């Protein structure tokens, strides 16, 4: 199965545009959403394999957005991509069904490895 569709949800346009370009150079098909509404509308147009989600995007709370994404795209793997290093929040999002958690700033290699792991169904705890 091809696992190359990625949705980036983050309100930092410079960040999403640059990361999207880097992922495209590596062969991924990337969509961008800057708000929770845009994210849900993007999913209605096509289900991504991987969703990278920031914790504070305009619109729904992170918890509500996570639930809405899981409902709208249950087969997508959701990876939290955030600058918030709070361990409690990390655990909370993982408990709510996020597949993985990456702290900004990161190395592109780390993101690619996490995409490959998620696509192959390897849970982060099995790779650490």
């Amino acid at each position, binding site marked *: 199965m091809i696992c190359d569709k990625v949705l980036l949800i983050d309100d930092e346009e*410079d960040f999403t545009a*640059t*990361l999207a370009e880097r992922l495209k*150079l590596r062969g991924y098909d990337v969509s961008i959403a800057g708000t929770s509404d845009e994210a849900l509308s993007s999913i209605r147009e096509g289900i991504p394999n991987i969703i990278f989600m920031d914790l504070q*995007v305009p*619109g729904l709370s992170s918890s509500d957005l996570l639930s809405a994404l899981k409902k709208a795209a249950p087969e997508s793997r959701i990876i939290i991509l*955030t*600058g918030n290093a709070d361990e409690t929040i990390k655990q909370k999002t993982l408990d709510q069904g996020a597949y993985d958690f990456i702290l*900004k*700033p990161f190395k592109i290699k780390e993101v690619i490895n996490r995409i490959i792991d998620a696509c192959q169904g390897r849970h982060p705890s099995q790779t650490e």
Partner: protein
Amino acid sequence: MPVKADTHLKQNKEYMMSEQLKFIAAILSIFTHELNNHSSIMNESAGLVLDLIEIKKDSNDRDLEQISSVTGGITGQVKKTTALVKYLNRFAHRLDAPLSNYNIYEVIEELVKLIERMLNQKEITVEMDFADDGIIIFGNPSILQYIIFSIIKDYLKCLKNGDDIIINVLKGDSAIEIKFQADGEKKIIINENMDCLEAVKQIGASIAGVNDGLVITLPLIVNGN
């Protein structure tokens, strides 16, 4: 059994210190999150430049244009990050002395910049309607920032996405009024559960609901030297 006056004062002081620390922690947490985001953008932009150099070795003009544009983006982010760090630095230095001369406009603007991420999440804009260059007063700017932060937090609970909060500062002969207004009929009802009441008392100010908003009245003390 009645509580002795000094015990009451001590309890109030301890309460205020604990509230103020919680407030500082909240601000630093929001702000460092934002710094991580900016570092991340610079990191990705620099990474993209390296990707382009590595992947597109047969360079032509279009590649050079793209590289130039990305490098411009990195410079822009460094500028933004430097400006934010300046606000954080000023904010931290407000705690150097309990009382000082300060520009009330700067104190409000600094706080609003620092909590921008929290406001953006609900797409709330805080408009600062300041008439002139500034009003210098003597007092505790950090506690005033805490009061304003608490009031904005209360507004966020009742505003809907996309609403505005307007802050005006009016200078009278013996007092400064900081007025908060929000879109439409949305108002905060002053009540005993508001977080900022103790802080308002501590700086000798008062808080009152008015027809179209809420007003904090600060005694006008100038030149504390």
